[in-house]
């Protein structure tokens, strides 16, 4: 069994044909994790029940059951609950928190016989673009161990990239699936808002968060997405009438935002892929975004901390998580939160409290909400004008060195091309787009496409064409 070249698609064929068992497959991944994880720190924990579950999947295969995910071992981000397992969201405040129920995506995958190998590292509460904000250390990039894996789903992306899992689930609030997928050379999908249930996802920004797959191929992302999507009565924001739509072959490129700040070789790779898409019958059209990407980023960095500050109010040391005793109830809260939260989390909570406070609400949160509506109308307008997909590089540059981005704003700029999809609720995918050279190391870069609401099929179809062209 050659796990370096295995995909969900080929592994499930191998399992069906009895080339190997689910137990053998799981053992091979656990062995590889044991070898590689000490250098990479992608996994926070490897589950001790993985082999038992693989054994159950084998019994299901032996009894004649089949399924694309039956016996397939995957990893899961540390903010998605699995009943009975620790789920810490990369934070000290939840270091001994055991989930009391399964997230909806987890129960859907358990039904299909997926084997959860372990939970992966992330920036605390998904706040960050490098996993440097994790309470459990940074996840190194498997392509260059001096560099970050990206974030916040950095552990998930690195686990797939280092062949420590066939696939992973991550969450994306402003780019947290697509940016690390791009840095690690894997595929990452942020689905349409409401396509996938968030029941059992530890919330960051509830109007922005989506769970999505991180995989080696576009086909694998499609398989995993099809398995987790769907209406859920436990998440009232899930769409009742979701159906994945395909689209046409007109790709819009917002040249006005690419002229400045994108690395030359990243842009060359991007242009080369656009050129090769023409051979598959695509029309490439220059478009102009009516808003500046800086504006979208500013809107995002008001709305997200505002929502984070309210969502994180639940961590108070009373019902679960870390408790530090003080002299009063107030002090119990304030000390538990002081000790349990890391610096970036505290910074965003204070920032969120600021922009929501009576004196500043209109100037920040009110303005941002209004601009969010106009950005959504602008993007819808572009799609209504005959454009089927909007393409950009996923990030302006490949992975950066650990410690390189020490001030908050330079880190926030990582999300410049990714936040629009979250603000508008539209789906977006990052696809590996070759490698660029930095200090003698080859580093992956990503090609991002955004499509109209519910047009995941369109992203998958074009994504497969891109894979075929590279």
């Amino acid at each position, binding site marked *: 069994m050659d796990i370096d070249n295995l995909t969900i698609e080929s592994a499930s064929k191998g399992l069906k044909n009895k080339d190997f068992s689910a137990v053998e497959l799981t053992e091979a991944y656990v062995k590889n994790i044991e070898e590689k994880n000490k250098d990479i720190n992608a996994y926070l924990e490897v589950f001790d029940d993985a082999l038992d579950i693989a054994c159950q999947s084998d019994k299901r295969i032996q009894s004649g059951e089949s399924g694309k995910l039956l016996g397939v071992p995957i990893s899961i981000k540390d903010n998605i609950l699995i009943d009975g397992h620790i789920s810490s969201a990369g934070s000290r405040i939840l270091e001994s928190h055991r989930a009391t129920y399964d997230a909806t995506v987890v129960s859907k995958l358990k039904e299909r016989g997926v084997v959860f190998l372990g939970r992966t590292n992330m920036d605390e509460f998904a706040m960050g673009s490098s996993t440097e904000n994790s309470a459990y250390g940074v996840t190194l990039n498997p392509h260059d161990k001096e560099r970050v894996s990206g974030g916040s789903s950095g552990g998930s992306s690195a686990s797939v990239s280092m062949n420590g899992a066939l696939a992973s689930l991550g969450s994306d609030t402003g780019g947290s699936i697509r940016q690390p997928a791009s840095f690690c050379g894997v595929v990452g999908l942020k689905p349409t808002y409401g396509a996938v249930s968030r029941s059992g996802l530890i919330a960051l920004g509830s109007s922005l968060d989506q769970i999505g797959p991180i995989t080696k191929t576009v086909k694998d992302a499609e398989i995993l997405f099809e398995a987790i999507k769907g209406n859920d009565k436990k998440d009232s924001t899930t769409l009742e009438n979701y159906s994945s739509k395909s689209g046409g072959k007109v790709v819009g490129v917002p040249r006005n935002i690419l002229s400045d700040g994108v690395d030359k070789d990243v842009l060359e790779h991007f242009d080369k892929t656009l050129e090769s898409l023409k051979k598959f019958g695509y029309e490439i059209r220059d478009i102009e975004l009516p808003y500046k990407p800086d504006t979208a980023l500013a809107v995002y960095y008001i709305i997200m901390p505002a929502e984070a500050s309210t969502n994180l*109010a639940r961590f108070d040391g009373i019902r679960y998580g870390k408790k530090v005793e003080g002299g009063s109830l107030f002090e119990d809260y304030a000390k538990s939160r002081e000790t349990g939260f890391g610096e970036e989390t505290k*910074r965003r909570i204070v920032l969120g409290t600021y922009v929501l406070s009576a004196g500043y609400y209109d100037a920040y949160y009110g303005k941002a909400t209004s601009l969010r509506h106009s950005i959504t109308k602008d993007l819808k307008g572009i799609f209504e004008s005959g454009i089927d997909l909007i393409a950009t590089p996923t990030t302006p540059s490949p992975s950066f060195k650990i410690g390189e981005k020490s001030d908050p704003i330079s880190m926030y700029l990582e999300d410049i091309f990714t936040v629009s999809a979250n603000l508008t609720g539209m789906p977006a995918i990052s696809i590996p787009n070759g490698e660029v050279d930095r200090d003698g190391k080859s580093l992956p870069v990503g090609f991002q496409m955004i499509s109209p609401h519910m047009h995941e099929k369109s992203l998958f179809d074009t994504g497969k064409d891109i894979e075929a062209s590279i």
Partner: protein
Amino acid sequence: MYSSSMITPDEIEKFADLARINISDSEKKRFAEDIESILGYVGVVSENVSKEKIEAPEHRNVMREDGEPHKTGEYTEKIVEQFPKKDGDYLSVKKIIEQD
């Protein structure tokens, strides 16, 4: 650009109090600088006059049938297990109203 007035460590302390977080003196100072520069950046929103009125998004009511969402007691044991401080099955907390 929207110029936010200088943010002081005292102001940061007030917001941290509202958010129920103790922060150290060095954090107060650092956050005051960081948040001032972040607000300087995101203040660009005030330059953009959005033509959009803040209309209510497409709100919809999501109703469920009356009845028990799950079996009574199904999760009780697991939830009690997570209490940081308990007295038997009771969640133990400090008095909410204090007398000075």
